[in-house]
């Protein structure tokens, strides 16, 4: 008894000592990051995130089989703490039971054994997944490609040993008659029966050895966890608690230096502009890097990775973590005299993140949506782009043209503003153009957007929407040639300065336009999800508060209210719906466009990747304006998926998606695939259906 007490405490002290050193190092490292704000506000929502995401494993359960396996393993960590309490008690007193009768209560014994058994089954599931997803065999298709594989297997082994030693310890004490649970703990008691053949002396030795091994495995596990990706066991709850609320999608954060927003009119010359080195990241960024579990869920969803490009959100986070580790000594002591490595650059020039990686991101948010530990990939990528553009002036050459067009002409196409109303020609009714304050009886400002104004394909959407609003009797007006770009392409390409210039001007003008109206009455409707996101969710950062609606939301409400009456055709067309990232994942609008498509009588067949797992069209993140030279084109990948549904029409709700998918389809049709298939906006389908009830009013061209 004394020997086992001494050895037990030795194991504990040595284990805790090693763990303590490592924990202190990690805490100091994360604290060396820049300050950031808004990570503790709204405690209620944070507690709820903790309950649903950590204890409820909400995000993991999106993937049912591995999610369930992880659910059991997580709860085993919680429930088996009681077994560890019993193990420590047994160091002092043979047959120790948790006080107040809890430790002999059969349901607890049952729960302990049940969760351990379920975890054992989960380990088998994990092993099978790892074998099936072996990167050595399926390479990039594996979500574990690039992850540390050895460590993962070692952890599975250690969890197995935790369970094995637990049952040996409990089984031998059951056989010895010192096991506190007389029923309930069915595996342990069964094990006791199996071991009863060994004599008492043998059982006593077995019990002691199993108990000490049980403790030793736990500390071995603890130390391994603190030095590996399994750190997430401790960090994930922290990371989830300090995440962006409600999630790291939608608006980008304003640029901050030292925890304060940068005022471009009076920036400090030592301010940090974006993130150029690892030392520029905030503590939340550093916590993100340390928390990554290398599960590869993000990688498996990334459109760039899935089309053969070098960007994988997982590998990007892992590279940043490795850089954090390698520069940790300088972050911890002596930041001042050390020149930190520039992050973005080719490997051969000592770079950490290849420019091809950085600029491949479409900001689609699929990674953020899937990440079970709430890592904020898009923010980190955009912050590095900001540094490249604002300080290094290094960006793909095509973006130079984009910036020039935005600066000189106020739109990415470089068209003259005088052409902004060309879409409304021959519409058959007058579209009121505002000049000055918005009249009281005008309900909606119809924000056309640059695509709607200048792109032929998008003009059809805008025309159809205008006509539908007209038919429904909605009183709307437009800004005509007084509209300019909201700044989305500038912001997503890292040119935060240009975004601020454009957005401030537009916000000031919109505020003047809506003067005297409450934000809920400042209604804007737009056909472009990027404008929706920027006007509705980024302009509040600049003091512009409006109620912005996507046209599919408004049209859906009009159909429900009976203001529009679509009539289904005799033979229902089969359609498939492509979710625009900035409508779906970034702004959570999934049902209205689908309901609208349904209202037109179309038969909807979903693509395998849809709703929150939808695949990007390839245009977001200012990729629309860059060439796509590496791998398969993302839009072609998406078109292939759409064609596989055998739908005759691909519908969507974003002018950029429409352009990209139309381009992809044209390419496939030139290869004799997808003949007769077309791409339309939901509003075009609706207009056609509404025209069936009132053919005389048809004027808008269909396409």
């Amino acid at each position, binding site marked *: 008894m004394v020997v086992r007490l001494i050895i037990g405490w030795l194991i504990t002290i040595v284990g805790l000592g090693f763990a303590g050193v490592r924990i202190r190092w990690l805490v100091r490292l994360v604290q060396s990051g820049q300050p950031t704000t808004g990570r503790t506000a709204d405690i209620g929502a944070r507690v709820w995130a903790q309950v649903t995401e950590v204890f409820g494993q909400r995000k993991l359960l999106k993937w049912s089989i591995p999610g369930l396996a992880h659910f059991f393993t997580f709860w085993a960590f919680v429930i088996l703490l009681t077994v560890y309490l019993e193990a420590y008690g047994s160091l002092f007193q043979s047959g120790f039971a948790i006080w107040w009768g809890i430790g002999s209560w059969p349901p607890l014994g049952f729960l302990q054994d049940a969760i351990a058994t379920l975890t054992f089954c989960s380990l088998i599931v994990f092993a099978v997944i790892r074998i099936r997803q072996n990167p050595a065999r399926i390479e990039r298709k594996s979500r574990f490609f690039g992850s540390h594989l050895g460590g993962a297997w070692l952890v599975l082994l250690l969890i197995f040993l935790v369970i094995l030693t637990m049952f040996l310890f409990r089984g031998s004490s059951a056989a010895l008659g010192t096991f506190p649970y007389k029923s309930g703990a069915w595996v342990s008691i069964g094990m006791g029966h199996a071991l009863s053949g060994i004599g008492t002396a043998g059982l006593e030795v077995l019990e002691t050895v199993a108990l000490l091994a049980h403790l030793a495995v736990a500390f071995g596990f603890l130390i391994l966890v603190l030095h590996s990706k399994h750190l997430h066991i401790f960090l994930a709850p922290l990371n989830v608690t300090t995440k962006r609320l409600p999630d790291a999608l939608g608006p980008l954060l304003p640029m901050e230096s030292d925890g304060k927003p940068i005022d*471009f009119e009076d*920036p400090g010359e030592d*301010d940090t502009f974006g993130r150029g080195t690892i030392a520029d990241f905030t503590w939340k960024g550093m916590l993100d890097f340390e928390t990554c579990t290398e599960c590869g869920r993000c990688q498996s969803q990334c459109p760039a990775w899935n089309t053969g490009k070098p960007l994988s959100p997982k590998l990007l986070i892992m590279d940043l973590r490795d850089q954090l580790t390698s520069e940790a000594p300088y972050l911890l002591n002596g930041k001042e005299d050390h020149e930190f490595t520039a992050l973005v650059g080719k490997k051969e020039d000592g770079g950490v993140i290849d420019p091809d990686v950085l600029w491949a991101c479409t900001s689609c948010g699929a990674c953020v949506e899937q990440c079970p530990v709430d890592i904020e990939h898009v923010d980190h990528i955009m912050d590095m782009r900001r540094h490249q553009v604002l300080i290094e002036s290094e960006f793909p050459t095509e973006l130079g043209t984009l910036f020039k067009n935005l*600066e000189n002409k106020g739109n990415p196409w470089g068209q003259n503003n005088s052409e902004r109303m060309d879409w409304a020609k021959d519409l058959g009714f007058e579209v009121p153009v505002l000049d000055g304050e918005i009249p009281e009886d005008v309900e909606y400002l119809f924000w056309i957007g640059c695509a709607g104004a200048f792109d032929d394909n998008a003009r059809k959407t805008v025309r159809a929407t205008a006509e539908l609003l007209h038919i429904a009797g909605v009183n709307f007006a437009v800004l005509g040639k*007084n509209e300019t770009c909201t700044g989305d392409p500038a912001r997503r390409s890292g040119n935060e300065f240009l975004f601020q210039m454009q957005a401030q001007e537009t916000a000031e*003008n919109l505020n003047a336009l809506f003067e005297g109206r409450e934000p809920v009455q400042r209604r804007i409707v737009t056909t472009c999800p990027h404008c929706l996101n920027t006007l509705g969710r980024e302009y509040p950062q600049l003091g512009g508060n409006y109620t912005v609606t996507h046209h599919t939301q408004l049209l859906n409400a009009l159909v429900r209210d009976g203001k529009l009456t679509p009539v289904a055709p005799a033979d229902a067309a089969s359609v498939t719906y492509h979710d625009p990232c900035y409508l779906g994942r970034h702004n959570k609008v999934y049902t209205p466009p689908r309901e609208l498509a349904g209202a037109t009588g179309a038969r909807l067949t979903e693509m395998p990747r849809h709703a929150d797992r939808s695949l990007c069209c390839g245009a977001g993140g200012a990729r629309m304006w860059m060439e796509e030279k590496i791998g398969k084109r993302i839009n072609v990948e998406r078109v292939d998926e759409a064609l596989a549904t055998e739908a005759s029409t691909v519908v969507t709700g974003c002018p950029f998606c429409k352009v990209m998918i139309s381009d992809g389809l044209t390419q496939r049709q030139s290869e004799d695939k997808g003949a007769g298939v077309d791409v339309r906006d939901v509003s075009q389908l609706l207009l056609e259906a509404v025209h069936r009830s009132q053919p005389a009013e048809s004027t808008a061209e269909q396409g």
Partner: protein
Amino acid sequence: MVSRLGYQCAYCGLRVRLEGDPRHPGHGVVEELTKSGEPMTLPGLEVLHRFCASALRAGSGGDTMLRRAWLGWVTDRFEASRPRRHFGIRHYSRLGLHPARMRAPRLFRKHWQVRKMRCAALASHYYANAR
């Protein structure tokens, strides 16, 4: 309104001042731009800021943001020196920065970029409602 009233400078795209001190670098002047070779301007008479006209004659080039930054810098200088009735625009191309006077020469690039943004932001605001 989201409108661009007034005259825009053919060189930097910001509005020109037509009232006040004619020596102001942002005061509007009319120039013939036949030899400029600038894609954004058509041959003929164009309105420019007084400073932009001289920068254009000096062949300073630069993208729009840099042109605005230069204008912002000289406007700032002009405003600062007004009480002394003395105004010079030397070093405008470096926006008043001297690599030799820097803590570390490698910082020049960063400081220059930051100064450029600051001056361009200043000019954009200063001339947003110019008349």
